[in-house]
């Protein structure tokens, strides 16, 4: 092996190659990949790359975060609104280990990330040198792929590989760990994007028999439901989904991460799946005779007891990752491959259909939920503000904003009550459920989509996990609107303690700092709202204020999120109270 990789790249004509440092090769590789923004934090083992970056400040926008975990989360937010790969650079040792939560989050939520980590010089590897840690070993199970580079001349090929792997097939995070001598060494620079890796086939050939079988089942079905996942967004297949739904007439529910792939007001959209999803798509699960899973992976938060999921239904699973087929739920018809191609193949062959009577059954459920839960939740009454009414009011004021959430009760209220008009409008931590994700992800989202409003809903617990990023917001002037749902509790855990542990509130109450001072310390505009009658005015003020804003909503302390599927129960056991 001379270049370290024997991948095939598009042939290039021979040319005189410039001789540059490995560090500059990193930067120029980024530029060759079309990177515009990097999130990072410097340190000893990555100084050479930062030194090279200094000369490219006009072409690469570097965002200095306050903690490396947040570099990844910000890059995730950026990647998910732009559809591009998020890029991060960090130093060795503690800088690298700080990213692990972010990488794990990106792996579970299929977000394309390239992380460059500095490493001690190759002569020091394995000696427990200062800030040396075996990062390849550590990130083995939280990355899609990783590699260590010890020679300057291997850098461009390694980065080309990293971008190809991160963004193709089912996307995910990759790590390129570069030793300091490789950063300092000299190399000829020649960048060839990678198009093929023999041992990695990200797109399976679509099997026409499976397409035909899927078509047959769809045409026969009387009570079908489509389950829309983030795969639709990742494949840019929103239009293909719409065409499939509109021809088939099938009702569609969404996973948490699939939200916004279909506009909230689409006539066939019947709500969100899962533990805290909507009533209809959960209770009707038992009645379905066909489930068409499109780019989703049957997470246990979606299926409840998987042995009872779709108990009377056949299952068609359109999926890009072979390892997801039959992992949790048996697929009668697995359709492996890129859904951007497979979905139209199905649409083309199915008969035009109408399931409006069946959809009406969902509407009945939606009405029950509206009367019992939604209307009371958004109604402006009671002694205190409540999360539902805040989300509803923000969503109405900020038409077509990007929703970012943290984790907990506020996440569920926000994702259910926020209205979406176009795709790539929700950024939330689904698979890992990482508290502290919201603030840095909102920073990345705003940087990725500066022309759109970004509304972050975050709990008092979650904000304090990564509140140091308020500093990043000020330094980089990132205009995110932060809606802090202050209930004085780790609310979601408190809810479980209330419902399943006899109200024994073991260490879930928070004695909070003065959030006004926190905002002020970071020079961020702030307002607090406690009364229903001040809510609209406060939200308008936030909207009309240029730049970042922290709106603290002092909400009801002990509100619960409903409906709810108790953990491990079948989804049709969903409880309204």
């Amino acid at each position, binding site marked *: 092996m001379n270049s370290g990789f*024997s991948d*095939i790249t*598009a*042939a290039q004509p021979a040319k005189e190659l410039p001789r540059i440092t490995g560090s500059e090769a990193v930067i120029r590789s980024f530029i060759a990949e079309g990177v515009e923004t990097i999130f990072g934090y410097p340190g000893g083992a990555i100084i050479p790359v930062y030194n090279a970056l200094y000369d490219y400040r006009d072409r690469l926008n570097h965002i200095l975060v306050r903690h490396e975990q947040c570099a990844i989360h910000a890059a995730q937010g950026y990647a998910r609104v732009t559809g591009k790969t998020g890029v991060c650079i960090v130093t060795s040792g503690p800088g690298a280990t700080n990213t692990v939560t972010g990488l794990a989050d990106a792996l579970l939520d299929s977000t394309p990330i390239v992380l460059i980590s500095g490493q001690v010089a190759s002569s020091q590897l394995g000696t427990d040198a200062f800030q040396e840690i075996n990062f*390849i*070993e550590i990130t*083995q*199970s939280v990355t*899609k*792929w990783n590699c260590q580079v010890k020679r300057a001349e291997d850098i461009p090929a390694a980065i080309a590989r990293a971008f190809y*792997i991160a963004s193709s097939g089912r996307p995910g995070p990759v790590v390129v760990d570069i030793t300091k001598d490789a950063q300092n060494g000299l190399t000829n620079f020649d960048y060839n994007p990678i*198009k*093929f*890796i*023999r*041992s*990695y*086939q990200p797109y399976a050939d679509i099997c026409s028999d499976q397409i035909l079988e899927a078509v047959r089942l769809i045409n026969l079905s009387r009570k079908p439901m489509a389950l829309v996942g983030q795969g639709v967004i990742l494949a840019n297949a929103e239009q293909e989904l719409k065409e499939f739904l509109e021809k088939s007439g099938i009702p569609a529910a969404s996973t948490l991460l699939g939200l916004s792939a279909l506009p909230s007001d689409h006539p066939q959209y019947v709500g969100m799946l899962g533990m805290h999803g909507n009533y209809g798509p959960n209770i009707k699960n038992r009645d379905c005779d066909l489930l068409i899973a499109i780019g989703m992976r049957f997470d246990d938060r979606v299926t409840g007891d998987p042995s009872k999921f779709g108990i009377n239904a056949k299952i068609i699973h359109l999926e890009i*990752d*072979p*390892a997801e*087929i*039959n*992992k949790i739920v048996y697929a009668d018809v697995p359709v492996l491959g890129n859904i951007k191609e497979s979905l139209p193949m199905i649409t083309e062959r199915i008969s035009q259909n109408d399931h409006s009577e069946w959809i009406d059954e969902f509407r009945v459920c939606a009405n029950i939920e509206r009367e019992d839960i939604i209307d009371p939740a958004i109604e402006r009454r009671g002694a205190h503000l409540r999360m539902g009414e805040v989300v509803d009011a923000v969503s109405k004021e900020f038409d077509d904003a990007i929703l970012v959430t943290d984790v907990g009760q506020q996440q569920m209220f926000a994702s259910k009550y926020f209205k979406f008009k176009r795709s790539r409008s929700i950024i939330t931590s689904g698979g890992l459920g990482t508290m502290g994700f919201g603030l840095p992800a909102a920073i990345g989202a705003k940087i990725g989509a500066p022309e759109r409003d970004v509304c972050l809903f975050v709990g008092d617990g979650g904000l304090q996990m990564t509140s140091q990023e308020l500093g990043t917001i000020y330094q980089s002037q990132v205009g995110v609107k932060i809606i802090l749902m202050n209930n004085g509790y780790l609310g979601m855990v408190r809810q479980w303690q209330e419902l399943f542990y006899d109200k024994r509130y073991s260490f879930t109450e928070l004695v909070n700092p003065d959030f006004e001072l926190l905002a002020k310390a970071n020079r961020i505009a702030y307002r607090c709202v406690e009364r229903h009658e001040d809510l609209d005015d406060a939200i308008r003020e936030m909207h009309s204020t240029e730049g970042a804003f922290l709106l603290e909503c002092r909400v009801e302390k002990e509100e619960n999120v409903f409906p709810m599927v108790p953990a491990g129960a079948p989804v049709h056991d969903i409880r309204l109270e």
Partner: protein
Amino acid sequence: MEREFIITIFSENKVGILSQVTTVFTHRNVNIESIAASPSAIEGIHKYTIAVKNDPERVANLVKQIEKKVDVLKVFCYSPSEVVMQQLALYKVKRSRNVEELVRRHNVRILEIHDEYIVLEKTGHKAELDELYQILAPYGIYQFVSSGQVAIIKSRRELLDEYLKYVNEKRDRILSETK
């Protein structure tokens, strides 16, 4: 229901693949019965042979998770009847007249004879190696070591070759598209 499986993994010859593969086993909580690594008949491609005992569905999922690793080319999973399997064991046993007699009866090779001990080698199925162990145990085994099981499929089709042909065609297609 638990059954025996032989998983053969073909990968690029790179540092760290073994750890990538074993991560999948620990993550899914599947025990490795034995493991063997060697070059394959194709240059640059490495082969791992892993024996497991587990239920078929779990193994099927495991295989897909291993294949998902970017540097892994292809994974095949066989039941013992589909392959020819062998394993090698060495026994360091206290010397005695009885042991030497046993050696003759059990088709065992003597690798080394010392005043105190004798080193024996046996190749065969796992069960045969275990059986010999039981027989020798009463005479005093100082040391015992066995290799992982190695296996070769009985089928005439060379599945890896077919796979490589398929990916090479794919590569040519991609290259011609980008020209």
